[in-house]
């Protein structure tokens, strides 16, 4: 009978792997994803780097005013062109004609004002307001009778150096390194999280749909003359899991090779973050979460009569898998928050969230073990329950089953 499970595993694995969609996703997805990220980085850098852009700012400040020189010098220091004009109407027209980004006007009553029809261009708007703020601040300080050095120290106070504490190594990482490390961790954690969550959803849906196909095409009657329902379920889960692992490991290998071959210095620290321990822990969490999710979807497939019925029932489970995605913002900001903590203990959710947290912060060992314990026990129980539901649901046709029927079967 074991060899029959092997036959089901082999068939289900090849059934997925031999499809064009799988092959395209296997090879193209990492390149599309990598290309997408590279394009995003490129365009972000392009939009941030405005040193070469020609920026013209209008200025209407009387040359006699004490603000004139510091403001004009600060703007010139940015490499921006200054267009001086005493007629505010002309400056306004030039701005509306897109020949100026905006203009600064000084009025003894209103003070300094900045006018632009492009206030949403925060780079320019913030720079101007910052310049004016600094000029005003230093003027106020000078009026107190302080010398230049004192003014400079007041305007540029020393900041605190930040160090990352570690029980294993001495504190050497300074602020710049810590920030860079955080960035890489966030990227790695997010990639792991998204990869796990998406794979869990995609492949467990495949198991559910495969069971539904068996039921709706009536081939299940033929299959069950050769294998027991539990064996069929096991074979399906293992076969589709194998396809899922093939896809994930291929993506990870392509990613690892790309990172190794690339000269991006920022990525050199990845191997320090993704230690073998994290790989192993993530794989185990994913594996059990995957079995739990696929078992649930298989039972949904067995309960369903049509694709619509399947979609309706599975929408409840998708919420469980995808819930952490909705909270990704706050979780990424503080992976040790109560929200992140609680969600990383909930089975299936923990499969994608706990690896993320472990990559981001030092999660206490007891939390990892407790979360894994909960996942292990719930996976075992879910498989047992799903087998029961599967056995009952798969052979009963012509009726849409609901959760009421499940309780009847589980009695």
């Amino acid at each position, binding site marked *: 009978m074991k060899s029959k499970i092997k*036959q*089901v595993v082999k068939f289900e694995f*090849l059934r997925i792997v031999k499809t064009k969609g799988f092959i395209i996703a296997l090879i193209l997805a990492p390149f599309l994803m990598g290309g997408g990220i590279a394009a995003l980085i490129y365009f972000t850098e392009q939009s941030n780097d405005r040193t070469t852009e020609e920026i013209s700012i209008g200025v209407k400040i009387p040359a006699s005013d004490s603000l004139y020189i510091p403001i004009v010098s600060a703007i010139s220091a940015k490499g921006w062109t200054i267009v001086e004009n005493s007629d505010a109407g002309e400056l306004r027209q030039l701005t509306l004609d897109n020949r100026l980004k905006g203009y600064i006007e000084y009025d003894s009553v209103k003070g300094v004002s900045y006018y632009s029809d492009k206030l949403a261009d925060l780079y320019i708007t913030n720079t101007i307001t910052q310049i004016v703020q600094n000029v005003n601040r230093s003027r106020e300080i000078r009026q107190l009778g302080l010398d230049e050095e004192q003014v400079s120290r007041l305007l540029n106070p020393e900041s605190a150096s930040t160090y990352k504490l570690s029980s294993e190594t001495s504190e050497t990482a300074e602020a710049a390194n810590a920030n860079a490390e955080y960035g890489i961790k966030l990227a790695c954690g997010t990639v792991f999280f998204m990869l796990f969550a998406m794979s869990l959803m995609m492949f467990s849906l495949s198991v559910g749909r495969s069971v539904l196909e068996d039921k709706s095409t009536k*081939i*299940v*009657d033929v299959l069950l003359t*050769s*294998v027991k329902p539990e064996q069929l379920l096991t074979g399906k889960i293992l076969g589709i899991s194998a396809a899922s692992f093939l896809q994930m490991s291929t993506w990870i290998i392509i990613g690892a090779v790309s990172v190794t071959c690339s000269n991006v210095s920022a990525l050199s620290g990845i191997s320090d973050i993704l230690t073998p321990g994290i790989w192993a822990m993530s794989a185990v969490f994913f594996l059990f979460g995957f079995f739990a999710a696929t078992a649930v979807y298989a039972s949904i497939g067995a309960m369903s009569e049509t694709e619509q019925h399947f979609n309706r029932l599975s929408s409840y489970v998708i919420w469980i898998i995808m819930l952490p995605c909705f909270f990704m913002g706050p979780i990424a900001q503080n992976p040790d928050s109560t929200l992140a903590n609680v969600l990383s203990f909930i089975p299936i959710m923990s499969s994608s969230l706990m690896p993320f947290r472990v990559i981001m912060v030092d999660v206490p060992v007891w939390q990892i073990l407790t979360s894994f314990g909960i996942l292990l026990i719930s996976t075992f129980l879910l498989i047992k329950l799903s087998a029961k539901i599967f056995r009952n649901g798969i052979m009963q046709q012509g009726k849409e089953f609901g959760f009421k029927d499940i309780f009847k079967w589980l009695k």
Partner: protein
Amino acid sequence: MLQLKNITKNYGSFRAVDDLSFTAEEGKIIGLIGPNGAGKSTTIRLIMNILQPDSGQILINGEPYKDEDSDLIGYLPEERGLYKKQKVSDMLRYLASLKGMKAEEIETQIDLWLSRFGLSKWKNEKIDALSKGMSQKIQFISAIMHSPKIIFLDEPFSGLDPVSSDELLKVIKELKTQGRIIMFSTHVMETAEIICDHIIMINHGKKILDGTIQDIRKKYGSDTITIDCTGSHSFLEGIDSVAGVTERGHELNIAFKPGADVNSLMREIVNKAYENQCVISSLKVDQPSLHSIFVSIAAQTDGQNTTQNTSENEIKN
């Protein structure tokens, strides 16, 4: 030999199969017939080991059913099911491997059977490229290619053209001569009448008929005489034993009353016809068709069941 001994299967409070017993022997085609909802599907699933009986035993060669026995069974379900996106050869390979066949043997059998049914050129085509009849032949091949000892065919001829039906029938007869137990389920009584050696009819989960076609006909006897005549046949109305006459062109179908002596009746009909100048060119005592037996027994058992249910309801009330 396949034996069902006092099999009962309940779905909650509903009894789908009720104390069913029968024996199916090697080299025989056994027809399992019954109206819709009679319990046929449940019986088939019990024999196929898809469902477990609540009580009773299923024996194969005198031994209780074991998991390994699943390889001895071939099944062609009424509602055909194959993976549409799979190639014909992959589909057959998978189903054969689940029946414990070795890889080399599978390849030989696939080629052999596809060639036999003229489907060799479709070997590497996807199932959804096949016509309904072709898919049916593929499913039939999957049911028999592992040389099962017990073959269950549920409506094997539905959707097949006459040539394909004959082809399939030929194979079924070959399997019979090879000593396989062939169980056959159909709603087409004419087909069952031609193919089956033995008929088992169930209704409301109970066996209501069990025997060879000849035994059943003998048991249910004849109640009609058919004559082919020219001239007035009004004389038939004057014969006491005649219950009714139905005209079918030249033919008259004469139903006679229960207990009537068929030989005396025939003599009386011939004499009266002669007296009334009616020329009879043929006269025969009709053999009851399986169809008419099926209809009458089903109606009878349905009536009994309704009465029983009414009585039960009256008691409950």
